[in-house]
Protein backbone atom coordinates (compact mmCIF):
# COMPACT_ATOMS: atom_id res chain seq x y z
CA UNK A 1 0.00 0.00 0.00
CA UNK A 2 1.32 3.40 -0.96
CA UNK A 3 1.79 5.64 1.99
CA UNK A 4 -0.23 8.82 1.62
CA UNK A 5 -0.27 11.60 4.16
CA UNK A 6 -1.08 10.13 7.53
CA UNK A 7 -4.68 10.47 8.72
CA UNK A 8 -5.09 12.57 11.87
CA UNK A 9 -6.66 10.87 14.88
CA UNK A 10 -8.35 12.65 17.78
CA UNK A 11 -9.77 11.17 20.97
CA UNK A 12 -12.88 12.44 22.74
CA UNK A 13 -14.74 11.35 25.83
CA UNK A 14 -18.27 11.69 27.11
CA UNK A 15 -19.94 10.03 30.11
CA UNK A 16 -17.42 7.38 31.12
CA UNK A 17 -14.28 6.69 33.13
CA UNK A 18 -11.72 7.35 30.37
CA UNK A 19 -10.45 3.82 30.89
CA UNK A 20 -10.74 3.12 27.17
CA UNK A 21 -8.21 5.80 26.32
CA UNK A 22 -5.98 4.44 29.04
CA UNK A 23 -6.26 1.06 27.38
CA UNK A 24 -5.17 2.67 24.11
CA UNK A 25 -2.16 4.10 25.90
CA UNK A 26 -1.49 0.57 27.19
CA UNK A 27 -1.06 -0.84 23.67
CA UNK A 28 2.67 -0.84 24.27
CA UNK A 29 5.34 -0.89 21.60
CA UNK A 30 2.76 -1.45 18.86
CA UNK A 31 1.61 2.10 19.62
CA UNK A 32 4.89 3.30 18.13
CA UNK A 33 4.21 1.25 14.97
CA UNK A 34 0.76 2.81 14.82
CA UNK A 35 2.24 6.30 14.82
CA UNK A 36 3.89 5.34 11.53
CA UNK A 37 0.39 5.06 10.10
CA UNK A 38 -1.54 7.81 11.85
CA UNK A 39 -0.92 11.17 13.49
CA UNK A 40 -2.43 11.45 16.93
CA UNK A 41 -3.45 15.11 17.26
CA UNK A 42 -5.65 15.09 20.35
CA UNK A 43 -5.28 12.65 23.23
CA UNK A 44 -5.29 14.34 26.59
CA UNK A 45 -4.12 11.30 28.54
CA UNK A 46 -0.81 11.14 26.71
CA UNK A 47 -0.18 14.59 25.26
CA UNK A 48 -0.59 18.23 26.20
CA UNK A 49 -1.44 19.89 22.88
CA UNK A 50 -4.91 19.47 21.39
CA UNK A 51 -5.41 19.74 17.65
CA UNK A 52 -8.84 20.58 16.29
CA UNK A 53 -8.17 19.31 12.79
CA UNK A 54 -8.77 15.57 12.49
CA UNK A 55 -9.91 12.80 10.10
CA UNK A 56 -10.67 10.00 12.53
CA UNK A 57 -12.52 10.67 15.79
CA UNK A 58 -12.26 7.94 18.39
CA UNK A 59 -14.98 8.63 20.91
CA UNK A 60 -15.58 6.98 24.26
CA UNK A 61 -18.46 7.45 26.67
CA UNK A 62 -22.24 7.62 26.47
CA UNK A 63 -24.39 10.59 25.56
CA UNK A 64 -26.24 11.77 28.65
CA UNK A 65 -26.83 15.55 28.45
CA UNK A 66 -28.21 17.95 25.87
CA UNK A 67 -24.76 19.45 25.63
CA UNK A 68 -23.35 15.98 24.81
CA UNK A 69 -25.74 15.76 21.88
CA UNK A 70 -24.54 19.07 20.44
CA UNK A 71 -20.91 18.20 21.02
CA UNK A 72 -21.02 14.76 19.38
CA UNK A 73 -22.91 16.24 16.40
CA UNK A 74 -20.08 18.76 15.94
CA UNK A 75 -17.48 16.00 16.11
CA UNK A 76 -19.46 14.02 13.58
CA UNK A 77 -19.54 16.97 11.20
CA UNK A 78 -15.76 17.32 11.32
CA UNK A 79 -14.70 13.68 11.29
CA UNK A 80 -14.48 11.61 8.13
CA UNK A 81 -14.59 8.46 10.28
CA UNK A 82 -16.26 8.20 13.67
CA UNK A 83 -15.33 5.32 15.92
CA UNK A 84 -17.38 4.45 19.01
CA UNK A 85 -14.84 3.25 21.53
CA UNK A 86 -15.73 0.96 24.44
CA UNK A 87 -18.91 -0.25 26.09
CA UNK A 88 -20.32 3.17 27.07
CA UNK A 89 -20.02 4.51 23.52
CA UNK A 90 -21.16 1.35 21.72
CA UNK A 91 -23.90 -0.14 23.91
CA UNK A 92 -24.44 2.42 26.66
CA UNK A 93 -22.62 0.23 29.14
CA UNK A 94 -23.05 0.69 32.88
CA UNK A 95 -24.49 4.18 32.28
CA UNK A 96 -27.63 2.44 31.09
CA UNK A 97 -28.45 1.59 34.70
CA UNK A 98 -29.64 5.19 34.99
CA UNK A 99 -32.39 4.51 32.47
CA UNK A 100 -34.10 2.05 34.80
CA UNK A 101 -35.61 4.85 36.85
CA UNK A 102 -37.08 8.26 36.01
CA UNK A 103 -34.58 11.01 35.28
CA UNK A 104 -35.91 13.02 38.21
CA UNK A 105 -35.16 10.19 40.63
CA UNK A 106 -31.75 9.58 39.06
CA UNK A 107 -30.83 13.25 39.44
CA UNK A 108 -32.06 13.35 43.03
CA UNK A 109 -30.05 10.30 43.96
CA UNK A 110 -26.83 11.70 42.63
CA UNK A 111 -27.13 15.43 43.21
CA UNK A 112 -29.56 15.66 46.11
CA UNK A 113 -30.86 19.20 46.64
CA UNK A 114 -28.79 20.48 43.68
CA UNK A 115 -30.70 18.21 41.30
CA UNK A 116 -32.60 21.08 39.72
CA UNK A 117 -29.38 22.65 38.47
CA UNK A 118 -28.47 19.58 36.44
CA UNK A 119 -29.40 18.89 32.84
CA UNK A 120 -29.63 15.21 32.04
CA UNK A 121 -31.25 12.97 29.42
CA UNK A 122 -31.39 9.19 29.16
CA UNK A 123 -28.00 7.53 28.64
CA UNK A 124 -27.44 6.52 25.03
CA UNK A 125 -24.75 4.86 22.96
CA UNK A 126 -23.36 7.15 20.23
CA UNK A 127 -25.21 5.51 17.35
CA UNK A 128 -28.54 6.64 18.79
CA UNK A 129 -27.49 10.24 18.13
CA UNK A 130 -25.05 10.22 15.20
CA UNK A 131 -23.89 7.82 12.49
CA UNK A 132 -21.11 5.57 13.77
CA UNK A 133 -18.70 4.04 11.25
CA UNK A 134 -16.81 1.61 13.46
CA UNK A 135 -17.41 0.07 16.86
CA UNK A 136 -14.73 -1.13 19.25
CA UNK A 137 -16.57 -3.04 21.96
CA UNK A 138 -15.50 -4.21 25.41
CA UNK A 139 -14.92 -2.65 28.84
CA UNK A 140 -12.09 -1.90 28.63
CA UNK A 141 -11.43 -2.52 24.91
CA UNK A 142 -9.44 -5.61 24.00
CA UNK A 143 -6.12 -4.47 22.54
CA UNK A 144 -5.96 -6.97 19.63
CA UNK A 145 -9.43 -5.79 18.60
CA UNK A 146 -8.43 -2.11 18.80
CA UNK A 147 -5.62 -2.86 16.39
CA UNK A 148 -7.82 -4.99 14.12
CA UNK A 149 -10.37 -2.16 13.84
CA UNK A 150 -7.67 0.45 13.17
CA UNK A 151 -6.29 -1.69 10.37
CA UNK A 152 -9.76 -1.94 8.84
CA UNK A 153 -10.19 1.84 9.04
CA UNK A 154 -6.86 2.39 7.31
CA UNK A 155 -7.71 -0.13 4.60
CA UNK A 156 -11.19 1.34 4.19
CA UNK A 157 -12.79 -1.99 5.01
CA UNK A 158 -15.76 -2.56 7.31
CA UNK A 159 -14.99 -4.33 10.59
CA UNK A 160 -17.47 -7.16 10.96
CA UNK A 161 -18.38 -7.89 14.56
CA UNK A 162 -18.90 -11.56 15.37
CA UNK A 163 -22.56 -12.44 15.79
CA UNK A 164 -22.14 -15.52 17.93
CA UNK A 165 -21.82 -16.22 21.62
CA UNK A 166 -18.63 -15.78 23.58
CA UNK A 167 -18.80 -19.52 24.39
CA UNK A 168 -17.56 -20.21 20.86
CA UNK A 169 -14.22 -18.59 21.63
CA UNK A 170 -14.15 -19.85 25.20
CA UNK A 171 -14.57 -23.44 24.03
CA UNK A 172 -11.83 -23.02 21.41
CA UNK A 173 -9.61 -21.95 24.31
CA UNK A 174 -10.62 -25.17 26.07
CA UNK A 175 -11.65 -23.43 29.28
CA UNK A 176 -13.60 -25.44 31.82
CA UNK A 177 -17.12 -24.01 31.44
CA UNK A 178 -18.18 -21.81 34.36
CA UNK A 179 -21.51 -23.65 34.47
CA UNK A 180 -19.59 -26.89 34.84
CA UNK A 181 -18.41 -25.41 38.14
CA UNK A 182 -21.89 -24.11 39.06
CA UNK A 183 -20.81 -20.52 38.48
CA UNK A 184 -22.84 -18.07 36.43
CA UNK A 185 -21.55 -16.50 33.24
CA UNK A 186 -22.97 -14.20 30.56
CA UNK A 187 -21.07 -16.05 27.83
CA UNK A 188 -24.05 -17.71 26.16
CA UNK A 189 -25.76 -14.40 25.25
CA UNK A 190 -22.72 -12.12 24.90
CA UNK A 191 -21.19 -11.19 21.55
CA UNK A 192 -17.82 -12.84 20.98
CA UNK A 193 -14.66 -11.02 19.85
CA UNK A 194 -12.56 -10.68 23.00
CA UNK A 195 -11.23 -14.26 22.77
CA UNK A 196 -12.96 -14.99 26.13
CA UNK A 197 -10.48 -12.68 27.81
CA UNK A 198 -12.06 -12.72 31.30
CA UNK A 199 -12.79 -16.44 31.46
CA UNK A 200 -9.26 -17.28 30.28
CA UNK A 201 -8.09 -15.42 33.37
CA UNK A 202 -10.38 -17.16 35.81
CA UNK A 203 -13.14 -14.57 35.84
CA UNK A 204 -16.71 -14.74 34.55
CA UNK A 205 -18.16 -13.01 31.51
CA UNK A 206 -20.05 -9.85 32.52
CA UNK A 207 -21.51 -9.21 29.10
CA UNK A 208 -19.54 -5.99 28.51
CA UNK A 209 -19.56 -6.54 24.73
CA UNK A 210 -23.32 -6.42 24.57
CA UNK A 211 -25.70 -9.12 23.49
CA UNK A 212 -25.59 -11.07 20.24
CA UNK A 213 -28.18 -9.90 17.69
CA UNK A 214 -30.55 -12.66 18.61
CA UNK A 215 -29.86 -13.72 22.19
CA UNK A 216 -31.65 -16.81 23.46
CA UNK A 217 -32.86 -14.95 26.53
CA UNK A 218 -35.43 -17.57 27.41
CA UNK A 219 -32.99 -20.47 27.21
CA UNK A 220 -30.32 -18.46 29.04
CA UNK A 221 -32.76 -17.59 31.81
CA UNK A 222 -33.64 -21.29 32.19
CA UNK A 223 -29.96 -22.11 32.50
CA UNK A 224 -29.34 -19.41 35.11
CA UNK A 225 -32.42 -20.50 37.08
CA UNK A 226 -31.29 -24.12 36.87
CA UNK A 227 -28.04 -23.11 38.50
CA UNK A 228 -29.94 -21.68 41.42
CA UNK A 229 -29.94 -17.94 40.67
CA UNK A 230 -32.81 -15.68 41.63
CA UNK A 231 -34.64 -13.78 38.91
CA UNK A 232 -33.44 -10.51 40.41
CA UNK A 233 -29.80 -11.60 40.22
CA UNK A 234 -30.32 -12.72 36.65
CA UNK A 235 -31.74 -9.30 35.81
CA UNK A 236 -28.69 -7.67 37.35
CA UNK A 237 -26.42 -9.88 35.30
CA UNK A 238 -28.24 -9.07 32.09
CA UNK A 239 -28.48 -5.36 32.72
CA UNK A 240 -25.08 -4.51 34.22
CA UNK A 241 -23.84 -3.48 30.78
CA UNK A 242 -26.88 -3.98 28.65
CA UNK A 243 -29.71 -1.86 29.98
CA UNK A 244 -29.63 0.28 26.85
CA UNK A 245 -30.36 -2.88 24.85
CA UNK A 246 -33.20 -3.69 27.22
CA UNK A 247 -35.89 -4.48 24.67
CA UNK A 248 -33.98 -7.57 23.59
CA UNK A 249 -34.66 -9.42 26.79
CA UNK A 250 -37.43 -7.38 28.43
CA UNK A 251 -40.14 -9.56 27.01
CA UNK A 252 -38.75 -12.59 28.83
CA UNK A 253 -37.33 -11.11 31.98
CA UNK A 254 -39.34 -8.10 32.95
CA UNK A 255 -42.66 -9.93 33.01
Amino acid sequence: MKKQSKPKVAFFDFTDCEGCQLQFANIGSTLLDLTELVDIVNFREIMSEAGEDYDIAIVEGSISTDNDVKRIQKIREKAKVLVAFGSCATIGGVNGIKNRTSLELAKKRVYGDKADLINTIKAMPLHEVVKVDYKILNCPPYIPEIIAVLKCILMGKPYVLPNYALCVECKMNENVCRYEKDQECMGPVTRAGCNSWCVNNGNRCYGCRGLVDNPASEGAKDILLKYGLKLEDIMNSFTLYNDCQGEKFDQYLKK
Partner: protein
Amino acid sequence: MKYAVINKEDLNKWLEHLKKKARLYAPKEKENLFVFRPVKDVSKICLEYIPTILPPKKYYFPQKEKLLKFQVNPFKTAKAIEEFEEFILFGVHTCDIAGIQCMDVIFRESPEDPNYLNRKEKMTIIGIECLKYCDEHANCTSMATHVPRGGYDLMMVDIDKVFIIHINSEKGEKLVTGLSYIKEAKDEDMFRLDRAREEKKKIFKEELAAPLPKVYDAFDKSFGSQVWKDVGKKCVACGNCTAVCPTCYCFDTADDMELSLNDGIRYRIWNSCQMDDFAKVAGGEDFRKGRDSRQRHRYYRKFKYPVDKFNRYFCVGCGRCTRTCMADISLKETVNSLIAGQSA
Protein backbone atom coordinates in the same frame (compact mmCIF):
# COMPACT_ATOMS: atom_id res chain seq x y z
CA MET B 1 5.25 -59.07 16.54
CA LYS B 2 1.53 -58.43 16.71
CA TYR B 3 0.96 -57.91 20.42
CA ALA B 4 3.43 -56.59 22.98
CA VAL B 5 3.38 -56.30 26.76
CA ILE B 6 4.72 -53.64 29.07
CA ASN B 7 4.68 -53.64 32.86
CA LYS B 8 2.91 -50.63 34.31
CA GLU B 9 5.96 -49.65 36.32
CA ASP B 10 7.86 -49.27 33.04
CA LEU B 11 5.24 -47.01 31.45
CA ASN B 12 6.94 -43.74 32.37
CA LYS B 13 10.23 -45.06 31.01
CA TRP B 14 8.49 -45.75 27.69
CA LEU B 15 6.85 -42.32 27.73
CA GLU B 16 10.26 -40.67 28.18
CA HIS B 17 11.39 -42.69 25.17
CA LEU B 18 8.37 -41.54 23.13
CA LYS B 19 8.99 -37.95 24.13
CA LYS B 20 12.39 -38.13 22.52
CA LYS B 21 10.94 -39.53 19.30
CA ALA B 22 8.37 -36.82 18.62
CA ARG B 23 6.22 -34.15 20.22
CA LEU B 24 4.02 -36.01 22.67
CA TYR B 25 0.44 -35.06 23.53
CA ALA B 26 -1.57 -36.83 26.21
CA PRO B 27 -4.58 -36.32 28.49
CA LYS B 28 -4.10 -34.55 31.81
CA GLU B 29 -6.35 -33.03 34.43
CA LYS B 30 -7.69 -29.48 34.09
CA GLU B 31 -9.71 -28.51 37.16
CA ASN B 32 -12.46 -31.13 37.31
CA LEU B 33 -12.09 -32.14 33.65
CA PHE B 34 -9.41 -33.35 31.25
CA VAL B 35 -7.55 -31.91 28.26
CA PHE B 36 -4.97 -33.11 25.77
CA ARG B 37 -1.76 -31.14 26.32
CA PRO B 38 1.89 -31.34 25.28
CA VAL B 39 3.62 -33.60 27.79
CA LYS B 40 6.23 -31.93 29.95
CA ASP B 41 6.09 -34.22 32.96
CA VAL B 42 5.11 -37.79 32.09
CA SER B 43 3.84 -38.43 35.62
CA LYS B 44 1.04 -35.88 35.02
CA ILE B 45 -0.47 -37.99 32.24
CA CYS B 46 -3.86 -39.35 33.20
CA LEU B 47 -5.02 -42.50 31.44
CA GLU B 48 -8.25 -42.89 33.37
CA TYR B 49 -10.21 -39.96 32.08
CA ILE B 50 -13.62 -39.00 30.77
CA PRO B 51 -13.38 -37.59 27.22
CA THR B 52 -11.32 -34.38 27.18
CA ILE B 53 -13.03 -30.96 26.79
CA LEU B 54 -11.88 -30.75 23.17
CA PRO B 55 -11.15 -33.92 21.24
CA PRO B 56 -7.62 -34.38 19.90
CA LYS B 57 -8.86 -32.91 16.60
CA LYS B 58 -7.23 -29.64 17.70
CA TYR B 59 -3.89 -31.22 16.76
CA TYR B 60 -4.77 -32.25 13.20
CA PHE B 61 -7.42 -29.58 12.57
CA PRO B 62 -6.36 -26.66 14.80
CA GLN B 63 -8.88 -24.08 16.03
CA LYS B 64 -7.11 -21.39 14.03
CA GLU B 65 -4.67 -22.45 11.36
CA LYS B 66 -2.54 -20.43 8.97
CA LEU B 67 -3.14 -21.41 5.36
CA LEU B 68 -1.00 -19.04 3.35
CA LYS B 69 1.15 -15.94 3.49
CA PHE B 70 0.67 -13.16 1.01
CA GLN B 71 2.02 -9.79 0.02
CA VAL B 72 -0.13 -7.17 -1.71
CA ASN B 73 2.47 -5.13 -3.56
CA PRO B 74 4.15 -6.73 -5.46
CA PHE B 75 1.58 -9.53 -5.24
CA LYS B 76 3.03 -12.78 -3.90
CA THR B 77 1.70 -15.82 -2.06
CA ALA B 78 3.42 -18.71 -0.31
CA LYS B 79 2.59 -21.63 1.94
CA ALA B 80 2.18 -20.46 5.52
CA ILE B 81 3.72 -23.57 7.05
CA GLU B 82 6.85 -24.98 5.46
CA GLU B 83 7.29 -27.99 7.66
CA PHE B 84 4.96 -29.98 9.88
CA GLU B 85 6.38 -31.67 12.97
CA GLU B 86 6.13 -35.34 13.96
CA PHE B 87 3.76 -35.85 16.86
CA ILE B 88 2.32 -38.66 18.94
CA LEU B 89 -1.18 -38.62 20.39
CA PHE B 90 -0.98 -40.82 23.46
CA GLY B 91 -3.88 -42.40 25.34
CA VAL B 92 -6.60 -41.73 22.75
CA HIS B 93 -9.97 -43.41 23.36
CA THR B 94 -11.45 -45.59 20.63
CA CYS B 95 -14.33 -43.11 20.17
CA ASP B 96 -11.87 -40.32 19.37
CA ILE B 97 -10.00 -42.61 16.97
CA ALA B 98 -13.31 -43.21 15.19
CA GLY B 99 -13.58 -39.40 15.05
CA ILE B 100 -10.21 -39.22 13.32
CA GLN B 101 -11.41 -41.83 10.81
CA CYS B 102 -14.44 -39.64 10.05
CA MET B 103 -12.21 -36.59 9.55
CA ASP B 104 -10.11 -38.68 7.17
CA VAL B 105 -13.16 -39.36 5.04
CA ILE B 106 -13.97 -35.65 4.87
CA PHE B 107 -10.54 -34.20 4.28
CA ARG B 108 -9.46 -36.87 1.78
CA GLU B 109 -12.52 -36.23 -0.34
CA SER B 110 -11.59 -34.40 -3.53
CA PRO B 111 -10.28 -31.73 -3.44
CA GLU B 112 -8.05 -33.11 -0.69
CA ASP B 113 -7.14 -30.79 2.15
CA PRO B 114 -3.33 -30.44 2.10
CA ASN B 115 -2.97 -28.93 5.58
CA TYR B 116 -4.94 -31.74 7.17
CA LEU B 117 -3.09 -34.41 5.19
CA ASN B 118 0.30 -32.91 6.02
CA ARG B 119 -0.48 -33.01 9.71
CA LYS B 120 -2.05 -36.44 9.53
CA GLU B 121 1.07 -37.84 7.86
CA LYS B 122 3.15 -36.76 10.86
CA MET B 123 0.73 -38.17 13.41
CA THR B 124 1.16 -41.37 15.39
CA ILE B 125 -1.81 -42.57 17.42
CA ILE B 126 -1.41 -44.63 20.56
CA GLY B 127 -4.86 -45.55 21.82
CA ILE B 128 -6.17 -46.94 25.05
CA GLU B 129 -9.22 -49.18 25.12
CA CYS B 130 -11.87 -48.40 27.75
CA LEU B 131 -12.91 -51.42 29.83
CA LYS B 132 -15.53 -49.47 31.72
CA TYR B 133 -17.78 -46.55 30.87
CA CYS B 134 -16.42 -43.03 31.23
CA ASP B 135 -19.88 -41.85 32.36
CA GLU B 136 -23.59 -42.14 31.58
CA HIS B 137 -23.48 -39.76 28.60
CA ALA B 138 -21.53 -42.03 26.23
CA ASN B 139 -23.31 -43.98 23.50
CA CYS B 140 -20.26 -45.71 22.09
CA THR B 141 -21.69 -49.24 22.11
CA SER B 142 -24.60 -48.18 19.91
CA MET B 143 -22.13 -46.51 17.55
CA ALA B 144 -19.80 -49.56 17.74
CA THR B 145 -16.85 -47.38 18.67
CA HIS B 146 -16.31 -48.88 22.13
CA VAL B 147 -13.88 -51.44 20.72
CA PRO B 148 -10.78 -50.79 18.59
CA ARG B 149 -11.53 -50.92 14.87
CA GLY B 150 -8.30 -49.75 13.31
CA GLY B 151 -7.21 -46.21 12.66
CA TYR B 152 -4.38 -46.35 15.22
CA ASP B 153 -0.72 -47.33 15.33
CA LEU B 154 -0.74 -48.89 18.79
CA MET B 155 -3.63 -49.79 21.08
CA MET B 156 -3.11 -50.38 24.77
CA VAL B 157 -5.37 -52.39 27.03
CA ASP B 158 -5.02 -52.13 30.78
CA ILE B 159 -4.86 -55.70 32.14
CA ASP B 160 -3.99 -55.89 35.85
CA LYS B 161 -0.31 -55.05 36.19
CA VAL B 162 0.47 -54.70 32.49
CA PHE B 163 -0.64 -53.00 29.31
CA ILE B 164 -1.13 -55.33 26.38
CA ILE B 165 -0.35 -53.40 23.21
CA HIS B 166 -1.81 -54.22 19.81
CA ILE B 167 0.63 -53.26 17.07
CA ASN B 168 -1.28 -52.04 14.06
CA SER B 169 1.33 -50.34 11.90
CA GLU B 170 4.99 -50.28 11.04
CA LYS B 171 5.23 -46.84 12.59
CA GLY B 172 3.80 -48.27 15.80
CA GLU B 173 6.04 -51.30 15.75
CA LYS B 174 9.13 -49.10 15.66
CA LEU B 175 8.03 -47.48 18.92
CA VAL B 176 7.91 -50.76 20.84
CA THR B 177 10.80 -52.75 19.36
CA GLY B 178 14.38 -52.72 20.63
CA LEU B 179 13.30 -51.84 24.17
CA SER B 180 14.23 -54.33 26.89
CA TYR B 181 11.09 -53.61 28.91
CA ILE B 182 8.58 -54.22 26.11
CA LYS B 183 8.19 -57.90 25.25
CA GLU B 184 6.14 -59.90 22.84
CA ALA B 185 2.82 -61.01 24.32
CA LYS B 186 2.55 -64.66 25.30
CA ASP B 187 -0.46 -66.96 24.95
CA GLU B 188 -1.21 -66.34 28.59
CA ASP B 189 -1.43 -62.57 27.97
CA MET B 190 -3.70 -63.12 25.01
CA PHE B 191 -5.91 -65.30 27.15
CA ARG B 192 -6.20 -62.53 29.70
CA LEU B 193 -7.02 -60.02 26.97
CA ASP B 194 -9.81 -62.26 25.66
CA ARG B 195 -11.18 -62.64 29.17
CA ALA B 196 -11.15 -58.85 29.68
CA ARG B 197 -13.06 -58.41 26.44
CA GLU B 198 -15.63 -60.98 27.57
CA GLU B 199 -16.08 -59.07 30.81
CA LYS B 200 -16.43 -55.86 28.84
CA LYS B 201 -19.34 -57.28 26.87
CA LYS B 202 -21.24 -57.59 30.14
CA ILE B 203 -20.76 -53.89 30.90
CA PHE B 204 -21.19 -52.21 27.52
CA LYS B 205 -24.77 -52.42 26.24
CA GLU B 206 -26.37 -50.47 23.41
CA GLU B 207 -27.30 -47.11 24.86
CA LEU B 208 -29.78 -45.98 22.21
CA ALA B 209 -33.30 -47.40 22.26
CA ALA B 210 -32.90 -49.10 18.87
CA PRO B 211 -30.14 -50.45 16.62
CA LEU B 212 -28.58 -48.04 14.13
CA PRO B 213 -30.69 -48.90 11.05
CA LYS B 214 -33.77 -48.05 13.11
CA VAL B 215 -32.11 -44.84 14.28
CA TYR B 216 -31.50 -43.95 10.66
CA ASP B 217 -35.14 -44.67 9.80
CA ALA B 218 -36.30 -42.51 12.68
CA PHE B 219 -34.23 -39.61 11.35
CA ASP B 220 -35.52 -40.23 7.85
CA LYS B 221 -39.06 -39.62 9.08
CA SER B 222 -38.53 -36.99 11.77
CA PHE B 223 -37.63 -33.81 9.92
CA GLY B 224 -40.84 -32.15 11.05
CA SER B 225 -40.82 -33.64 14.54
CA GLN B 226 -41.84 -31.67 17.63
CA VAL B 227 -38.59 -32.93 19.19
CA TRP B 228 -36.65 -30.26 17.27
CA LYS B 229 -38.93 -27.50 18.58
CA ASP B 230 -38.29 -28.69 22.14
CA VAL B 231 -34.54 -28.89 21.60
CA GLY B 232 -34.53 -25.47 19.91
CA LYS B 233 -36.30 -23.90 22.86
CA LYS B 234 -33.61 -25.02 25.27
CA CYS B 235 -30.67 -24.22 22.97
CA VAL B 236 -28.81 -20.92 23.47
CA ALA B 237 -26.65 -21.36 20.34
CA CYS B 238 -23.44 -21.24 22.33
CA GLY B 239 -21.82 -23.64 19.85
CA ASN B 240 -20.29 -25.83 22.56
CA CYS B 241 -21.72 -29.02 21.04
CA THR B 242 -20.06 -28.52 17.68
CA ALA B 243 -16.74 -27.28 19.06
CA VAL B 244 -16.32 -30.40 21.19
CA CYS B 245 -17.52 -32.84 18.52
CA PRO B 246 -14.73 -35.04 17.11
CA THR B 247 -16.40 -35.07 13.70
CA CYS B 248 -17.43 -31.43 13.25
CA TYR B 249 -15.12 -29.97 10.66
CA CYS B 250 -16.69 -26.70 9.47
CA PHE B 251 -14.40 -23.72 9.21
CA ASP B 252 -14.38 -20.16 7.95
CA THR B 253 -11.46 -18.43 6.25
CA ALA B 254 -10.30 -14.86 6.75
CA ASP B 255 -7.30 -12.64 6.09
CA ASP B 256 -5.25 -10.90 8.71
CA MET B 257 -2.99 -8.02 7.70
CA GLU B 258 0.15 -6.98 9.47
CA LEU B 259 0.51 -3.34 10.48
CA SER B 260 2.51 -2.71 7.32
CA LEU B 261 -0.85 -3.23 5.57
CA ASN B 262 1.11 -4.94 2.82
CA ASP B 263 1.81 -8.41 4.27
CA GLY B 264 -0.79 -10.74 5.61
CA ILE B 265 -1.85 -14.28 6.30
CA ARG B 266 -4.94 -16.19 5.34
CA TYR B 267 -6.14 -18.44 8.12
CA ARG B 268 -9.05 -20.74 8.79
CA ILE B 269 -10.95 -20.83 12.03
CA TRP B 270 -13.53 -23.30 13.40
CA ASN B 271 -17.05 -22.36 12.48
CA SER B 272 -20.31 -23.95 13.42
CA CYS B 273 -23.84 -24.55 12.16
CA GLN B 274 -25.04 -23.41 15.59
CA MET B 275 -24.02 -19.82 14.90
CA ASP B 276 -26.82 -17.43 14.05
CA ASP B 277 -25.42 -16.34 10.68
CA PHE B 278 -24.03 -19.70 9.55
CA ALA B 279 -26.59 -20.31 6.82
CA LYS B 280 -27.13 -16.66 5.92
CA VAL B 281 -26.32 -15.76 2.31
CA ALA B 282 -25.81 -12.56 0.36
CA GLY B 283 -29.13 -10.78 0.18
CA GLY B 284 -29.84 -11.62 3.80
CA GLU B 285 -31.74 -14.88 3.29
CA ASP B 286 -31.14 -17.31 6.15
CA PHE B 287 -31.78 -20.97 5.45
CA ARG B 288 -31.66 -22.09 9.07
CA LYS B 289 -32.99 -19.20 11.03
CA GLY B 290 -34.21 -20.85 14.22
CA ARG B 291 -32.14 -22.57 16.85
CA ASP B 292 -34.46 -25.56 16.35
CA SER B 293 -33.50 -25.93 12.69
CA ARG B 294 -29.81 -25.47 13.49
CA GLN B 295 -29.86 -28.14 16.19
CA ARG B 296 -31.74 -30.44 13.84
CA HIS B 297 -29.09 -29.85 11.22
CA ARG B 298 -26.36 -30.85 13.67
CA TYR B 299 -28.09 -34.14 14.42
CA TYR B 300 -28.78 -34.88 10.76
CA ARG B 301 -25.08 -34.27 10.10
CA LYS B 302 -24.35 -37.15 12.47
CA PHE B 303 -27.11 -39.68 11.83
CA LYS B 304 -28.44 -39.14 8.31
CA TYR B 305 -26.48 -37.08 5.78
CA PRO B 306 -23.06 -38.78 6.19
CA VAL B 307 -24.75 -42.18 6.11
CA ASP B 308 -26.27 -41.27 2.75
CA LYS B 309 -23.03 -39.81 1.45
CA PHE B 310 -20.27 -41.95 2.99
CA ASN B 311 -22.14 -44.90 4.49
CA ARG B 312 -20.81 -43.91 7.88
CA TYR B 313 -22.38 -42.48 11.04
CA PHE B 314 -20.65 -39.33 12.19
CA CYS B 315 -21.57 -39.71 15.84
CA VAL B 316 -18.79 -41.57 17.63
CA GLY B 317 -20.67 -41.85 20.92
CA CYS B 318 -18.15 -39.93 23.02
CA GLY B 319 -20.94 -38.05 24.80
CA ARG B 320 -19.13 -34.70 24.68
CA CYS B 321 -22.04 -32.70 23.23
CA THR B 322 -24.28 -33.82 26.09
CA ARG B 323 -21.63 -33.31 28.73
CA THR B 324 -20.83 -29.77 27.58
CA CYS B 325 -24.41 -28.57 27.08
CA MET B 326 -25.36 -26.11 29.80
CA ALA B 327 -28.97 -26.32 28.63
CA ASP B 328 -29.05 -30.09 29.24
CA ILE B 329 -29.71 -31.12 25.66
CA SER B 330 -28.89 -34.82 25.69
CA LEU B 331 -27.99 -36.68 22.52
CA LYS B 332 -29.25 -39.99 23.89
CA GLU B 333 -32.56 -38.46 24.97
CA THR B 334 -33.04 -36.61 21.69
CA VAL B 335 -32.37 -39.68 19.56
CA ASN B 336 -34.51 -41.87 21.80
CA SER B 337 -37.37 -39.36 21.57
CA LEU B 338 -37.21 -39.59 17.79
CA ILE B 339 -37.27 -43.38 17.96
CA ALA B 340 -40.21 -43.29 20.38
CA GLY B 341 -42.00 -40.81 18.14
CA GLN B 342 -41.73 -43.20 15.22
CA SER B 343 -42.93 -46.30 17.04
CA ALA B 344 -45.81 -44.47 18.73
